[in-house]
């Protein structure tokens, strides 16, 4: 630290007062103790330790599927790192980011398959990657040129267009070259100096190295002239310009670096799945990358990686109904524990919820046996536990849909209410949420995943707006 006086400040003295915010942010308790312990270790040591632990992962599991999830996680992490440069550091809302990922994948695909020419092009991987990444960096510059005068909303819309144009282009323009909706197949695996990477584990390690190297490079950039320029432009472009920073140039560089990182991830992705398909680079995937950056804490390198990991692993867990249920109920419980105070009130709500469920189940069961004939869709131990608590009709679709609408109206009402009325309404609404979940949502995995991801972000926004590892941002003074 550059502070000359490291002695603990005296209470009541100017410095002690000035540092009160710092102390409050750190808080106390076990989590703060961990944070403090980590802070004592240097950044590079932390990176090395975490990388070593992650490197052990493929050795500890025999499941190829788990390693495959690891590969997807590292891809998302790399993408989040690149996006963090553009969004987190430079403050440019780039919604066309995933197009560069696609550009990397397609670029590599064309240079490493039978797609072009009579016998195809099969460049050594390293060469192909360098060509594609440099091309992407240039494309980033080119795209940045017209966008550099655009601010905020305009930039977002223009880049979103660019993203769509990319998908349209590879799908519909020149299908001979890009394979149209079927994409490019039969892409060579990565080969470095005669060594072919063919296993999932192999790709895991290639990506781990790439991720760690990018993290290291970004860390060095962050505390350099370039990094300060980026962040100054994010904070106040006009002030930055008046402090000798060439704002447009700095923005273009950020765009370009983001594009290069995304393209690099794209090349490895194409080689890994031996194919490049237009649907992989559509807007839903963009949302995942953004979710990672925001969840982890926009502006933080470790945060981008952690956020991407959480998003990737969460989505994987949500594929399995029983795990999805655990997550769903866990999230609700967590929110209740955090938000409902004091403890007596929380206990009352939970007790009322349990009683309410059994009562409803008993009453409806007495009226019509078929109305409770169904089984909770969650399955697993959660499904069993809820068997005689949540009502599941034999034909759940209709009631489930109606309940979904009622639930949303109820949530709107909940926000308007205050005090006791709010607590009272909470109980049936929670039950309704469980009902909707068991009757409809579990069955609609693709929708549920998005809703839950949204819910996680909303919970996060309330609990820790700066993200997992981000630092607090102050907007207005």
């Amino acid at each position: 630290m550059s502070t000359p006086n490291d002695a603990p400040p005296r209470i009541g003295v100017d410095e002690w007062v000035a540092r009160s915010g710092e102390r409050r942010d750190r808080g106390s308790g076990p989590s703060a103790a961990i944070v403090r312990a980590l802070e004592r270790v240097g950044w590079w040591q932390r990176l090395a330790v975490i990388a070593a632990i992650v490197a052990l992962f493929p050795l500890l599991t025999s499941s190829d599927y788990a390693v495959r999830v690891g590969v997807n996680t590292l891809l998302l992490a790399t993408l989040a790192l690149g996006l963090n440069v553009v969004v987190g550091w430079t403050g440019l809302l780039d919604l066309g980011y995933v197009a560069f990922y696609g550009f990397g994948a397609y670029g590599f695909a064309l240079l490493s398959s039978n797609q072009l020419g009579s016998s195809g092009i099969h460049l050594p991987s390293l060469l192909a990657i360098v060509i594609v990444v440099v091309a992407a960096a240039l494309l980033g510059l080119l795209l940045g040129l017209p966008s550099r005068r655009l601010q905020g909303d305009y930039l977002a819309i223009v880049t979103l267009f660019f993203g769509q144009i990319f998908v349209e282009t590879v799908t519909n323009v020149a299908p001979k070259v890009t394979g149209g909706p079927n994409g490019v197949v039969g892409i060579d695996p990565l080969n470095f100096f005669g060594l072919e990477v063919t296993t999932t584990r192999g790709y895991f390690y290639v990506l781990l190295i790439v991720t760690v190297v990018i993290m290291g490079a970004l860390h060095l950039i962050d505390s350099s002239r370039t990094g300060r320029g980026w962040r100054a432009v994010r904070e106040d472009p006009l002030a930055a310009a008046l402090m000798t920073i060439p704002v447009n140039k700095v923005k273009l560089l950020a765009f370009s670096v983001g594009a290069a990182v995304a393209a690099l991830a794209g090349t490895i992705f194409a080689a890994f799945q031996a194919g490049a398909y237009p649907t992989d680079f559509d807007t839903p995937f963009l949302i995942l990358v953004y979710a990672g950056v925001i969840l982890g804490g926009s502006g933080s390198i470790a945060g981008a990686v952690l956020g991407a990991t959480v998003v990737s692993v969460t989505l994987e867990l949500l594929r399995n109904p029983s795990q999805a249920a655990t997550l769903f109920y866990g999230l609700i419980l967590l929110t209740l524990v955090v938000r409902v105070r004091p403890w007596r009130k929380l206990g009352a709500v939970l007790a009322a919820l349990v009683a309410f469920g059994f009562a409803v189940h008993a009453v409806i069961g007495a009226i019509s046996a078929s109305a409770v004939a169904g089984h909770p869709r969650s399955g697993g131990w959660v499904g069993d536990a809820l068997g005689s608590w949540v009502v599941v009709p034999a034909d759940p679709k209709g009631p489930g849909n109606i309940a979904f609408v009622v639930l949303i109206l109820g949530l709107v009402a909940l926000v308007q209410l205050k005090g006791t009325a709010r607590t009272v309404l909470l109980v049936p609404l929670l039950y309704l949420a469980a009902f909707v979940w068991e009757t409809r949502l579990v069955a609609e995995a693709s929708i549920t995943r998005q809703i839950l991801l949204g819910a996680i972000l909303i919970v996060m926004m309330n609990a820790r707006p700066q993200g997992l590892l981000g630092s607090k941002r102050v907007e207005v003074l």
Partner: protein
Amino acid sequence: MTRPLLELDHVTLAFGGLHAVEDLSIAVGEGEIVSLIGPNGAGKTTLFNLITGVYAPTSGDIRVAGRSIAGLAPHRIAGLGVARTFQTLRLFVNMSVKENVMAATYGHTSARMWQSVLRTPKARREEREVNALAEEVLGFFSQRLMGYRWDQPAYSLSYANRRRLEIARAMATRPRVLLIDEPAAGMNPQETHEITDLIARLRDERGYTILAIEHDMHVVEGISDRVIALDHGQKIAEGSFEAVATNPLVVEAYMGRGTAVTKG
């Protein structure tokens, strides 16, 4: 007066029909401290915006050390040695105090991104220099911006300290001309007094040429070699503090808006 370092030559700026600055000619000599006064909305801040390139003049010319800067991009003008502070503070609030200052060295440093990544000798030397410059500039404010505050985010500073940091940041651009917009606004009497000394030190120890906008007449009297009064974008008086403060046009300009030129 010595050779003029900053010259405005019949400068006009029109926002649609409103002439915020009209046919204004000003010359500031090297090493001079000139104060700019005038009622609210007189066009003082707009004049700073013109000089620093935020707006290009509708007509007329602006020169720094004889070189025309009218129409240049703001970062180029800053690079030519014109730095400023903002009336409404515009710090990089989510960066540390020291980073605020270091960021302002961008123009006179040259380490490329790849050089920083590879930590080439040049990049490392430059980073050391930037660090030293930042610490030295912050040290100019002695205890006010010292030590433990350097790593704190700029938003955590008190209002007065944020004003000081604005000056420190401007100093890091290595200016020849320093434009200071209402440095004493929002400060208590003790701090206002400090500011008066500080501005004198900026010229004496740093050799800056200073153009300052200030409403506090104690400060204006204390710092100025010369005072220029503006109203409706036009120069209505120029000269020593005593001459300008008693000038009937100036008194009327202030009286007309319901405020007199009073000290304090």
